[in-house]
């Protein structure tokens, strides 16, 4: 007769190991290969130069202005989209809590951007909303007397546009999560606060916000990870351009590897992005656990 606990452990391992091995094989080993690639010179347009390069690719990053600019753009893109999503999402959730009718319809509208493939979202915006001449945005600004703009052709407007697209697509996520947490808050606390004659602002700062903290932190973590791996919507809307105006690290690593065929250097850029993503997400998780 075997020990039942030992039996359970063995059974659990037998169920878990296949998935674990598959994950190691499909995610961790390729990442090791990414690191290996990043210390190679692999330029498919000059295959005769292929060979071990040591840290040369990383050393090259230091003097690469395009890399620093894309690092800066990644920072701007991630920070603004996450802040906008949380602020707008929270404001809308607070607002909708006051509206009793039509919440079902609102939820359906909120789900549309979320289920849309980011590449389609990018194309929709590029063609229908932001296209010069016949796009809806241009129609609006002209109707308001603000004039016509080349939304995706001007470097600064293009950055603004891709930020707007990302915010449009993912704010419903923040909204839905925060709405669900708002609805779950105990109503008696507000009753007590009202009896204490706390004003609406005081109630928001001292009750709602602290109680929503865990939900907000979840939203920030997940939105950051999504923003840091954003690719398809920008690719579809601007392709990283005009020039390198919307070229965040993802786009830069992609263009280096698959347009310029310089995979070794592209791998080095991707490794930097990987380190940033993992540091940021584990940092946020640690922060959350520490509380």
């Amino acid at each position, binding site marked *: 007769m075997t020990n039942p606990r030992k039996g359970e452990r063995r059974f659990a*391992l037998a169920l878990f190991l296949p998935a674990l091995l598959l994950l190691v094989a499909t995610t961790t080993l390729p990442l090791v290969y990414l690191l290996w690639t990043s210390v190679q010179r692999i330029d498919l347009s000059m295959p005769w130069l292929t060979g071990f390069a040591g840290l040369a690719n990383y050393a090259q990053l230091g003097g690469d202005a395009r890399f620093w600019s894309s690092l800066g753009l990644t920072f701007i893109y991630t920070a603004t989209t996450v802040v906008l999503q949380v602020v707008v999402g929270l404001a809308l959730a607070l607002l909708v809590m006051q509206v009793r009718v039509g919440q079902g319809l609102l939820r359906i509208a909120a789900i549309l951007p979320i289920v849309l*493939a980011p590449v*389609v979202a990018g194309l*929709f915006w590029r063609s229908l909303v932001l296209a010069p001449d016949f796009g809806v945005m241009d129609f609006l600004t002209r109707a308001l007397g603000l004039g016509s703009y080349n939304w995706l052709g001007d470097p600064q407007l293009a950055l603004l546009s891709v930020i707007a697209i990302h915010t449009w697509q993912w704010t419903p996520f923040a909204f839905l999560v925060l709405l669900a947490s708002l609805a779950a808050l105990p109503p008696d606390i507000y009753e007590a606060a009202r009896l204490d004659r706390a004003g609406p602002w005081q109630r928001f700062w001292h009750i709602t916000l602290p109680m929503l903290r865990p939900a907000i932190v979840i939203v920030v973590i997940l939105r950051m990870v999504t923003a840091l791996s954003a690719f398809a919507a920008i690719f579809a809307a601007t392709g990283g351009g005009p020039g390198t105006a919307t070229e965040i690290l993802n786009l830069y690593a992609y263009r280096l590897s698959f347009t310029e065929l310089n995979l070794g250097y592209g791998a080095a850029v991707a490794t930097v992005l*990987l380190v940033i993503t993992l540091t940021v997400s584990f940092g946020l998780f640690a922060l959350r656990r520490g509380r």
Partner: protein
Amino acid sequence: MKLRNAVLLVAAVLMMFVWAFPVVWGLLTSLKTERDVLAYPPSVVFEPTLGNYADILFGATSILPNLVSSVIVSGLTTAVTMLFAIPAAYALSRLELPFKRGAGFYVLATQMLPPVGLVIPYFLILRGMGWTDTYQGLVLVYLTFALPFAIWLLVSYFEEIPREMEEAALLDRAGRLRALWYVILPQAKGGIAVTVIFVFLNSWNEFLFAVVLGGNTVRTVTVAMFNFISLEQTQWARLAAAAMAGMAPVIVLGLIAQKHIVKGLTVGAVKGGGRR
């Protein structure tokens, strides 16, 4: 008070409009002729035509092969993912698994990897294996995001099943595998269905892996959108029709699973982040 309610209602309607607008406008555009699309000011009243849909489904630039590609890739990814994720999630949620915390954290970490960091090594690996532009190659890569996601989503559903159920089954000496099959799985049917929907949806919408690692044989519908864009001219109406046809499955799935969408999107962070 009346005024305040009216303002709130207007604000809510406005936001609904903003979110639904590109999709609604896309639908309208897909029913226009290429000439009507370019009209200024943008027209809401026009003679609708199904010509674009006929073109993109049965014409020279048919996206039917791409829809088939997407169905095969997403279907296979979902099947393989569930096959591995269900037992793993059961072990992680209900059994005494050695190094449980570490194992859970590892699965979560794999979910956070930026795709561009994976697409570069996979490009070289699949090329070496002769697996670029093959279904098995793309499904293998899709597992990198589908599997960790499915495991965490299923864990959250398995944890909701009352423990007494399986204890009773185990006391009957039913055997652990039978308890999983006859007791846990029927109880978790809803959660499994939602997981299937999300894995399918995420695979369907994937673009970066598909564009780099696919090709002429395996060309998913998200990649096929670019058939209608060229340097000389873009066929906006056909593009809109292709987008609507390509997105119809996920919109339908999203509406079916709408109640579960918040849970599906927050999974992992809630569990993996430790204390709530």
